């Protein structure tokens, strides 16, 4: 960083920047206040004051152009946390980016007014602020992407949980309705969850209902057979129900050996078979 620019920035820092704080509230009011209702006036005032204090810290630091300085890092964290807060309140990343851009113009305008220096004549200062704000916009985007990733991971975990609803429908009888498309990674998850439940609940029979499965490929059908085998190896019985005609045809054309695997047309038939194997008789109450 050249000496001249550093001096100019120090001179700016020497100004009574507290005076310009109200001017910086305007971008916040436009993007987070009134219509969007993401922040109230007090919060916007606090936001502007905190930003100004962090910016003053950066401009007054030993090397204001150092992007690894604690002062710059604090400013980045401020924008990352702002982005996170706005997204959590239902705002969009565009609003935070536009706020950051508008804040840049407002800061330059306020400093110009306060210092009496026309920044159009001092391109180095203008360039400095532009590059700083570009980095801050990047921080906003990084935070946005991290948040999106976190939300997607949470949604995926929730989906996994709900897509393998293993239920103990009777003492020692587990049912697992499989819905949607079975791919290899999901099949592995199903297998892991199911085997652990067999051990935990001491399940004697597992009924796997494929009524909701529309497609199956060679790899998945092998995994399916592997689940059945693993359940049997643990000492439980497995019954597959609801194999649709298309799936049955696919299994045969894939040369999948269903020998030794109990199948029933529907979940209800599967449960009847499970009860029969356990010696349980379910009957209507005598009137």
């Amino acid at each position, binding site marked *: 960083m050249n000496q001249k620019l550093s001096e100019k920035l120090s001179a700016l820092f020497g100004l009574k920047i507290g005076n310009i704080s109200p001017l910086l509230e305007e971008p916040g009011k436009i993007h987070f206040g009134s219509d969007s209702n993401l922040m109230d006036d007090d919060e916007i005032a606090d936001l502007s004051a905190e930003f100004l204090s962090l910016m003053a810290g950066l401009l007054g630091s030993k090397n204001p152009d150092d992007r690894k300085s604690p002062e710059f890092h604090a400013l980045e964290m401020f924008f990352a946390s702002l982005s996170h807060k706005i997204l959590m309140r239902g705002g969009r990343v565009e609003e935070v980016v536009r706020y950051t851009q508008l804040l840049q113009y407002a800061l330059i305008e306020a400093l110009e007014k306060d210092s009496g220096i026309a920044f159009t004549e001092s391109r180095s200062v203008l360039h400095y602020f532009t590059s700083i704000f570009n980095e801050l916009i990047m921080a906003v985007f990084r935070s946005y992407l991290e948040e999106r990733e976190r939300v997607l991971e949470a949604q995926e975990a929730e989906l996994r949980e709900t897509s393998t609803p293993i239920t103990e429908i009777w003492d020692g009888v587990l049912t697992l309705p499989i819905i949607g498309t079975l791919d290899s990674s999901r099949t592995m998850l199903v*297998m*892991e969850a199911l*085997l*652990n439940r*067999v*051990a935990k609940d*001491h*399940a*004697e029979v597992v009924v796997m209902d494929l009524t909701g499965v529309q497609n199956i490929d060679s790899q998945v059908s092998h995994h399916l057979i*592997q*689940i059945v*085998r*693993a*359940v*049997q*190896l*643990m*000492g*439980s*019985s497995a019954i597959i129900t609801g194999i649709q005609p298309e799936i049955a045809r696919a299994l045969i054309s894939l040369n999948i050996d269903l020998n*030794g695997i109990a199948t029933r047309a529907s979940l209800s038939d599967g449960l009847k078979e499970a009860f029969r*194997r*356990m*010696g349980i008789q379910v009957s209507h109450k005598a009137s």
Partner: protein
Amino acid sequence: MIPGLHLTRIGRDAFLLEPSRSLNIKNEAELIEHIARELQQAKASCLYYDLAGLALIDPVYYAWLDALARTMAAINVRMVCIHMQPTAAFALSGFITEKPAFETALDISDVHFAGNPV
């Protein structure tokens, strides 16, 4: 006393085999002979093999179980593996291509019901 395993009589004609960590299945032939002799002398008809302590069954261990089960079948003793862990079942189901020679059950008490030929 057979090194590496505990063989306990349970009931009139059944035995429980609990392998310990020191079980050396390289001595397969010797071990199988010992077990078969003891079961024959006791007129046993069922051998429960407890797999509770085994997190993984690899092809080598499976070959040992298979050989033992076939020998048991030859002397008319039913071999039932109990307490197979989910991880072991998962690993084993990945490489076996045919029905094992042994039966499986969750526990001894389930054998009357399941006695599950895989």
